[in-house]
């Protein structure tokens, strides 16, 4: 075979192989994205019969592709087509996520509020709204909605943990301790709760308990142990500076 022909054939084979690999990877990504969107909608939902579900599916696919503006528009249309309030709340919740991704926090909060008004017993929607209030620093409202979650799902560890965080943030240390201990009763390996409890104990000056919870956080493989250690050291130092008391750790 002439050399030039061999090179040309190899080049063509390389082009075909690379394009094939590229198309396969894109197709795999698209399939995975659509499968995730369908999982979120629900396996049993028929997209052909339900216009609202179809629009919601399109919206979620656009969200995963990071086309947030387009996703919000599809989801808004889906809300209008949804007869069932739970479906409308679902679409509004996803719209809120789109606005969060676009950093339009006011619109995100409004969507969350609308979702809760339509479906006031939907735990996921309540929790997400509470999260949004918590992130914007409106702890009273956040507390109200986390407690609403607990009405329907008693001892929900995530809601209890967030209530503990909120109480800590407002300086209600005894209430925070109660909530965070309840979290550890539900899930003994919940490292973030153990970490926050260690900080709380340091703030209260109870260094023995601080050490216990610090060890529990480490055992639970808390991600930022180094920073936690630094925080605890700093609190102990400042407590000692102000009170002049010996620590019992």
């Amino acid at each position, binding site marked *: 075979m002439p*050399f030039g022909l061999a090179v040309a054939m190899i080049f063509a084979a390389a082009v075909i192989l690379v394009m094939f690999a590229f198309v396969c990877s894109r197709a795999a990504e698209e399939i995975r994205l659509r499968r995730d969107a369908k999982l979120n909608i629900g396996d049993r939902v028929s997209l052909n019969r339900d216009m609202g579900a179809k629009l919601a599916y399109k919206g979620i696919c656009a969200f995963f592709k*990071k*086309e947030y503006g387009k996703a919000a528009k599809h989801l808004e249309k889906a809300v209008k087509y949804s007869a069932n309030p739970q479906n409308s709340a679902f679409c509004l919740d996803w719209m809120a996520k789109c606005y969060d991704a676009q950093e339009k926090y006011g619109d995100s909060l409004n969507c969350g509020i609308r979702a809760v008004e339509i479906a006031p017993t939907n735990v996921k929607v309540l929790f997400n709204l509470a999260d949004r209030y918590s992130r914007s*620093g409106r702890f009273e409202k956040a507390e109200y909605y986390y407690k609403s979650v607990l009405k329907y799902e008693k001892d929900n560890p995530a809601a209890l943990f967030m209530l503990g965080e909120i109480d800590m*943030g407002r300086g209600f240390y005894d209430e925070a301790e109660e909530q965070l201990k309840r979290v550890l009763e539900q899930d003994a390996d919940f490292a973030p709760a153990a970490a926050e409890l260690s900080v709380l104990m340091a703030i209260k000056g109870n260094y023995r308990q601080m050490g216990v919870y610090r060890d529990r956080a480490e055992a639970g493989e808390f991600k930022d142990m180094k920073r936690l250690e630094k*925080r605890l050291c*700093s*609190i102990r130092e*400042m407590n000692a*500076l102000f009170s002049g008391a010996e620590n019992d750790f």
Partner: protein
Amino acid sequence: MRIFGVEFDGNTFTELFFIWWFCSFLVLFPVLLVMARAAKQRERRNRIERLFDETRFGADAKAKKRFRKALGLIVSDDVKFGKASRIFKRIMNKTADPLDRAYCAQWYGKCREAGGDEFYAATFYTEAVRIAPSDVFALNRLANYYHDKDYEKSERYYRQSLEYDPTETRVYFGLGKLYSRNGEPEKAIKQYETAIAVNNGYVAPMAEAAIEYAKKGDKENCLKYYLLAMANDLYEFDKLEEEIKLCLSD
């Protein structure tokens, strides 16, 4: 033929493999470049959508398109504040609606400020406030501009901003810093406490309140706000610690 000192005759397996690998690289490289470029374009579009207020300019699609183009010049890697500011100015001159004109003046001011021309930026923020007195963003920028230059003007703009948006916690924080700078710690602490009351998780005023109390020698309240800042996971707690120690030693 000879490549890098190696004799190629196209017959041996290893030579063919080398050629195949090289050709694959030649094809793969531009494909990867195109994919990266597409991802960058998508990210740029998302950033423009984040910045652009859809409610502006009503049905004027041309103005919206030009505005997005100007925003695209700001969010791209090759930032062009000058060109963007000229587009904003042109849209402002052609728009009749006062709120849209104020919006364009605001963005013109931002471009000028980003380009380092604070004085000219302040001129346009003043223009934005003149056209739309409730433009909270422009009021805040003006208050910030006069923060180190004119105490009374800065305080006036902060107060004006609060009349239109009493939930903007950064304004309370700015006022607190202004009073602190002017040697009015009681007023400063009051503003910090208001900021914390409006946004319970706002850590910066907690830290500043701790420092103000340390300056006054009020250890109890200093510790209270320090611990509150730590409970809210203050990021640069070591700096706060150093400053408090410095204030207490003074």
